[in-house]
């Protein structure tokens, strides 16, 4: 504090040493006026948006994946027209979401569909969730298809129904197989929350921008949030590897 007051005039004169300048900029970026609270709020929003988008993405993803595999596995001569229609809708959804950039989806949601909403953060979470659902559904579908069809056949040949076969045999095995891809999708989602700034969502990038808008010094706020993202991703990767190790142990015992 005292040092900051002492060295700040030196910087204006251009006679501050490297370390003095470093300290002043650091102080401005993180400490002055309790700015670290702004980052913390940003982190909170980032995590909240990630959690909501993840929940929505997983629910949508499972729904779409189940509909699409159920449709593909129907007995011939027993095709259900309603399922056919719903399957068509799911296909369009996945194609549109995967075929357009995240940024454009956000802009359309924020400025066209929900242009009257002021709750930018929620609109952002909704958009990310819808986006993530398309990718999650493809990951799950891939996991279901990669499983040896003999597993489902064995279940069905014992007289178990489609639902029981999925629940006890297919899904537990598919889940283990797709966990790495799912973790990857989660990491992408976490980082993509930074994009909601373009529609006014108040997450970490927003906080950094607000701060360097006042101090005219971009390096510290940007490197700062980069470090926070990195830390969050590292913590998550570590948790994921713990889970994977536990799942692997269960079939070795």
């Amino acid at each position: 504090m005292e040092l900051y007051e002492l060295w700040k005039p030196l910087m204006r004169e251009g006679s501050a040493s490297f370390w003095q300048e470093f300290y002043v900029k650091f102080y401005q970026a993180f400490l002055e006026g309790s700015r670290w609270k702004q980052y913390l709020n940003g982190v909170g929003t980032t995590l909240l948006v990630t959690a909501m988008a993840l929940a929505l993405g997983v629910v949508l993803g499972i729904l779409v994946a189940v509909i699409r595999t159920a449709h593909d596995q129907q007995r011939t001569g027993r095709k259900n027209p309603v399922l056919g229609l719903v399957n068509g809708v799911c296909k369009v959804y996945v194609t549109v979401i995967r075929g357009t950039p995240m940024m454009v989806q956000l802009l359309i949601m924020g400025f066209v569909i929900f242009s009257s909403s002021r709750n930018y953060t929620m609109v952002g979470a909704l958009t990310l969730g819808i986006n993530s659902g398309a990718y999650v559904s493809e990951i799950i579908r891939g996991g279901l298809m990669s499983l040896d069809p003999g597993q489902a056949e064995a279940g069905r040949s014992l007289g178990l129904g489609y639902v029981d076969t999925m629940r006890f045999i297919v899904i537990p095995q598919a889940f283990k197989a797709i966990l790495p891809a799912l973790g990857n999708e989660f990491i992408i989602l976490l980082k993509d929350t930074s994009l909601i700034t373009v529609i006014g969502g108040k997450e970490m990038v927003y906080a950094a921008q607000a701060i360097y808008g006042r101090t005219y010094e971009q390096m510290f706020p940007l490197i700062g949030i980069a470090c926070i993202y990195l830390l969050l991703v590292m913590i998550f990767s570590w948790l994921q590897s713990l889970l994977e190790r536990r799942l692997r142990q269960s079939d070795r015992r």
Partner: protein
Amino acid sequence: MIDVKHLSKSFGDHQVLKDISEHVYPGDKMVIIGPSGSGKSTFLRSLNLLEEPTAGTITFDGEVITDPKVDIDRVRRKMGMVFQHFNLFPNMTIRKNITLAPVRTGLMTQAEADDKAAQLLSRVGLVEKADAYPNQLSGGQKQRIAIVRALAMNPKVMLFDEPTSALDPEMVGEVLAVMKELADDGMTMVVVTHEMGFAREVGNRVLFMDEGKILEEGSPAQIFGNPQNPRLQDFLSKVL
């Protein structure tokens, strides 16, 4: 017990089964032999509708099961199936593998199913493996478990698709012994196999399939001792 009438099956425009009619009687030990790609597996898998016939009807226990309105899960509970690659569920213990279907389909309570599993496991000499996982077992052990798993549903007929083809030679015997015992107990069995010794010893009827048709059928003595069809003679000269 199983009546097959004019059964045909095509994959795309490749016709694999060509107008097959056949009857499986109670207590039959029907053995199906034939060259690779002749449609043996497809025929066997059609019997419990793992393959959907393109044409024809299959009647099981007086019920036309090829009718789309039939609840196929209920029918399959009475037909056990054993696969070439065992298809045990790797995410469950052996006990769970065996008891899952009887419990979930409401046939038994968990306690009853556990008893049944223990009883069947001791019959095949694998009681001590109840709490193991499938990938801790040898191929022969896995296949014996797979047979037990199917038997736990108290099926009326057992379908076997090359149950010993994926096994190391020294493990074939233990699986065939279990199948033979099952046959001696009077189980109705349909067996696709390349084990000609088993066909001769256990089978009461042998079917020779080639190119989607049953070309010759008879007792083991007729088929192996006095084959008529030149294709069968040729096939036997290669495998015996």
